[in-house]
């Protein structure tokens, strides 16, 4: 089955298992190109597990495997002949806690580009990536200093900068602002609006306002009685927050539980 070009990636009956336990079950999502799609839901419903399956980060969890299809340009990312390293070069990721490399600010960006075979002008790439991540003005005079000298919010923007330096198609964000203060959070959200001009963004968030403010589409996840998570509703963000079809979504987004 080919996925149509307006979708950056789509899943067909994607399930993720830890050994015999099914953590996420039967997910069908079509992620639209150059849009922000938010995944929301209560703790432990498998949001992060689902997100990490999109760039095969779950490969590193012993016993974790996926069934079903995850299609990107007609290729199933879980088929045997797919190289996960190549997948991750096309699908970047920003983590919950900022995790810059213990290298200089400059090297944080240059390293990823170099291992991805970048041959152009590195200084230019570093500047351009930092500008795109709205960090350039704050760090341009201290590019050789350690990334750990930056504040948490700056570190997170540096992580975004190094991700866009390798020019992926899709950027996955796993609660990128949950460890940050409200001002830094806002800056990340503004940045996402800039980034979606060039990148498809998939974001997991605990913060309902954030999903409502920042995303175009929202997927609501919930666990069933076997403790397997699944997407119970997927729609325009506006619809999810104003007239959800599922009662459980309504309860969740109005703060009645979760």
């Amino acid at each position, binding site marked *: 089955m080919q996925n149509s070009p307006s979708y950056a990636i789509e899943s067909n009956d994607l399930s993720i298992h830890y050994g015999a336990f099914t953590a996420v079950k039967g997910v069908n999502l079509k992620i639209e190109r150059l849009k922000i799609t938010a995944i929301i839901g209560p703790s432990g419903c498998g949001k992060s597990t689902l997100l990490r399956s999109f*760039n095969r*980060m779950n490969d*590193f969890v*012993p016993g974790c495997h996926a069934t079903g299809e995850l299609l990107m340009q007609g290729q199933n990312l879980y088929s045997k002949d797919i190289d996960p*390293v*190549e997948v*991750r*070069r096309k699908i*970047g*990721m920003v*983590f919950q*806690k900022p*995790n*810059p*490399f*213990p*290298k200089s600010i400059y090297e944080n960006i240059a*390293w*990823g580009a170099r*291992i*991805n075979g970048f041959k152009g002008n590195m200084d230019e790439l570093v500047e351009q990536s930092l500008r795109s991540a709205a960090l350039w003005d704050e760090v341009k005079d201290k590019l050789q200093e*350690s990334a*750990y000298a930056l504040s948490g919010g700056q570190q997170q923007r540096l*992580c975004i900068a*190094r*991700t866009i330096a*390798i020019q992926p198609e899709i950027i996955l964000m796993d609660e990128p602002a949950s460890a940050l203060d409200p001002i830094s959070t806002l800056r990340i959200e503004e940045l996402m609006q800039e980034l979606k001009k060039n990148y498809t963004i998939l974001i997991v968030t605990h913060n309902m306002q954030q999903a409502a403010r920042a995303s175009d589409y929202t997927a609501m996840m919930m666990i069933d009685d076997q403790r397997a998570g699944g997407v119970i509703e997927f729609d325009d963000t506006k619809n999810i927050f104003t007239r959800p079809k599922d009662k459980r979504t309504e309860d969740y987004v109005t703060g009645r539980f979760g």
Partner: protein
Amino acid sequence: MSQSFDLKKKTRIGESAIQSLLFLAGILSIVTTVAIVYELGKEAMLFFGNPDVTFAKFFGGTQWQPGIGNYGIWALVSATLTTSAIAIFIALPLGLAAAVYLSEYASPKARGILKPILEILAGIPTVVYGYFALLFVTPILKSFFGDHIQVYNMLSAGLVMGIMILPLISSMSEDALSAVPRSLREAAYAMGATKLESSLQVVLPAALSGIGAALILGISRAVGETMIVAVASGAGPNFSFNPLEAAETMTGHIARISGGDLSYNSIDYTSLFAIALMLFLVTLVLNLISQWIVGRFRERYE
């Protein structure tokens, strides 16, 4: 109205007893070190107080024959440096490679089998290593170098010493590598790094301070190792950096001479303490150098 309670200080005897006990345990090692330095220093002073001995002779000479007035410490330092350098040259790359494999590549099962086996190496008595060098490694070397290599030689002793400190280096380095937060590996993988790129370019530099500690300890073990060199590298001071030759290290010399009958006031006796002090100094200098190197290249992640 709540019940009244007492917030005044209480004496907790168990707490203070334990605290003093822990303090004593800590102070014991300091006292021991000070006592050793004092004893070494005292006897070495007797040696340097001898009108025959000058610092120039001691640090400048390459002949060590205290009986006839030759006190050139280099005759012994050269062998210590040569054997230790060979040992580190073997143990550091192999130990690091083993550590990277165990921490980054090995499946839990392979790790569970390999790690204990590697640690058995650390449990072999050094005298056994000594005869292993003399009776097993030297004949093999002999078949390569023929008559160019002496029966007692620094190469064989150094190689086996390297094998001896390999588990120390690999086990400490592995601890350092495993202590690097998973989030850094994830960051590397999420950038499209292969396992090798992540291991060598992200995890290894981040673990460098721990690996440096392993290196320092390895150097100290090599410089201080006595039995292997006493058995396999030769008995007789020889100023040489040629690994194919026989030469006696500082430790080997101390062990051999102190085993004979020495009168307490003789220059031979007090010279042993001067050698021991020098050993202290060599270890200290090598530690400082490796600390500087590590400080220069390590990447702090917290």
